[in-house]
């Protein structure tokens, strides 16, 4: 086993354990912390794949911004025990969830294993060099300029949406 493989298994295991923890912990705070672990592990995987920019973004946007948002909200609501942990999941629903999950995972793995059969991936030559931030930037501002700009609109819309949603309703004049 070369170091790359070792690192993959370490990060991969970390991500999976984190993910399972997210759905297993009762308290949302723990779930959130577990999620951060997963995000960091994924960032490591991105580095392994040579996607340094994405890895950095992952840490900054997900582990940084988004998770802080989650934590804020959890604390803001300061839920009571029942609300905090949610009503105990019915055994039936849990059973259904796990059975469906297994089926789903099986299909996903099947797709993954057969990913190379008769697809573009099969014939492609793996590129050893890492993708540079420069390369991503070039694409974003040339070929994907319009989607890029539209993204800003989405963010704007989200911004306005949030303000409207959480705004305190003014008492009506009459």
């Amino acid at each position, binding site marked *: 086993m070369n170091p790359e493989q070792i690192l993959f298994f370490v990060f991969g295991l970390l991500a999976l354990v984190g993910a399972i923890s997210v759905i297993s912990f009762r308290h949302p705070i723990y779930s959130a912390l577990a999620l951060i672990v997963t995000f960091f592990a994924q960032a490591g995987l991105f580095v392994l794949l040579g996607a340094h920019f994405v890895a950095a973004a992952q840490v900054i946007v997900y582990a940084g911004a988004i998770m802080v948002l989650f934590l804020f909200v959890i604390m803001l609501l300061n839920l009571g025990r029942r609300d905090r942990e949610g009503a105990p999941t019915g055994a039936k*629903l849990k059973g259904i969830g796990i059975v469906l999950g297994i*089926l789903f995972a099986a*299909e996903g793995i*099947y*797709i993954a294993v057969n990913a190379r059969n008769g697809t573009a991936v099969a014939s492609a030559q793996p590129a050893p060099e890492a993708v540079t931030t420069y390369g991503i930037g070039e694409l974003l501002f040339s070929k994907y300029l319009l989607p890029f700009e539209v993204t800003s609109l989405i963010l704007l819309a989200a911004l306005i949406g949030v303000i409207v949603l959480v705004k305190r309703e003014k008492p009506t004049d009459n």
Partner: protein
Amino acid sequence: MSRELIVVLLISPLVGFLINGLFGKFLKGNEKLSGGIGTLAVLVSFICAIVAFAGVQGGAVLEGDAGVLYEWIAGEGFTFNIGFHVDALTTVMLLVITGVGFLIHVYSIGYMHGDAGYTRYFAYLNLFVFAMLVLVLGNNYLMMFVGWEGVGLCSYLLIGFWYERQSATDAGKKAFIVNRIGDFGFLLGMFTLFAAFGSLDFTAIFGAAEADTFQKVFGGSTLVIATLLLFVGAVGKSAQMPLYVWLPDAMEGPTPVSALIHAATMVTAGVYMIARSAVLYELAHTGQVVAWVGVLTAFFAATIALTQNDIKRILAYSTVSQLGYMFVGVGVGAYASGVFHLMTHAFFKGLMFLAAGSVMHAMANELDMRKMGGLKAKMPITHWTFLIGALAIAGFPFLSGFWSKDEILHSAWGSHPAIYVIGLITAFLTAFYMFRLIFVTFYGQSRVASAVASHVHESPPVMWVPLVILAIPSAIIGLLLGWGGHGSAFHHFTESVFKAAKEIGNGAHGEAAGSAVPFMIISAIVGLVGIGFAWMRYSKRTPAAQPGTALHKLVANKYYIDEVYNAVFVQPIKNVSHYLLWRVVDTGIIDGIVNGVAVAIRIIGGTLRRLQTGVVQAYIVSMVVGIVIFLAYYLFIS
């Protein structure tokens, strides 16, 4: 003869109608003006008719393209014009319509005095004259149909003139609907003719029908069907069996209307139509049917007339009966005689109706003759004129009815002796019931209610003058025009019209056998015997208040024909429409299916809606199940 003359003749009553109809509001209360306008309008037509008559006598006939006024309905393969056809037959009709019409207008000025609908009355009356003129002036069947329906409308309006009376409006509606049944036949007859000839013009159809080519292509059956269908129209309009039921009821209208429309003019339209289509009837040999229907109606109606006590109803049944005679005339090929009887009948029956109106006027609208009697003294002019009319219809020698009826009977003998015999019996019945009417009304003891008795008086001059004027032709016109039977002045005048038909028909009807004189003598005797019987029975005695025997009761109730029609046609149709068609078929079945579809969709929706639990996770579960199945299908099966 110029087309313009005919236009003036035709338009004049229309103008009268429009003035009285549109501006009646402003004329209200001014009876002299609206009555005067209405009467004047018909007078103008009458003068034009005389001019036209003189023209036709001079040989100037308006027909074919010369008479076309404008194209009415036209398209690829069909053209129907508004156009005139004026020949001897037309002018006879014109003179009767405008002449008798004028007198009745004059009479109406007095008769309708004080009525709330005075203006409306004259408007309708003028419209009627206009429609009747359209009927006889048209140069094609379609235009005849226009007039045909037009007079039906006016008849409807005038019968129901006093619209606040339920019985009057019922009678009007009945008249219109029964007439429509006839018109339905007329309409189909026109279609048959058009399908065969590609035209509805008289000249085109008669010309083509005579030609050998047509006979070869179509044979006789088309014509048989067409003429019989047209005859259905005539049966409706001229109140023959089995569609006569509307005419007695039509007496609900003002009496001058009965005189003009239901005696002198409109009801004779059927006779005119058959006389006009003589060629077709000869070619199709359907005259026999016409004659039989006519003679049976004549007899049937006469029997009913025997038992009635209402003066106007007796006259109405008598009209039905006399119309039957006319159909016998045109049916057996004696077209000129049929039309001649039409003309004499217009005079004497119009006269009698007006005289009856005069009686009503005096008797405060009493019509039951059992409550009269002895009126001769108080109303001498009415009595004498009525008597002349009655003598004329009874076939008293040398009065007008004698000549015309005798010609018909004479011709009927040549066609089928049975028709002659029945016709002769009817003549006897006619004389009997007419003089029953005369004796009971004008002779014997007065049975007038004391309250009314003091008011009984002779009518004003505006009413009795028309009576006297009408009495003159009723008495003498037969002598003037009918002398000499088939060689008379009238026959001579109309000869050109019926020449073609006569030529075709010569083979069919044997020329009236032998001399006319024996027939005249027999007719005269029969008539006199009838009068004699009536004198014996009714000159002294009052008629029985209640019908005696079962037969008498049956006849007095008009054979229950109205009741039968009501039970067999009217009520079932009403009930089927209401309960079966509307309630069951329409609301129940058809709309039930429509609403049923809606209800079914609602039920399905209601069931499916339960799936919408509102719990997000239930949706997610179903979504994931869907994804799993879809992926499984995509990956492993396809």
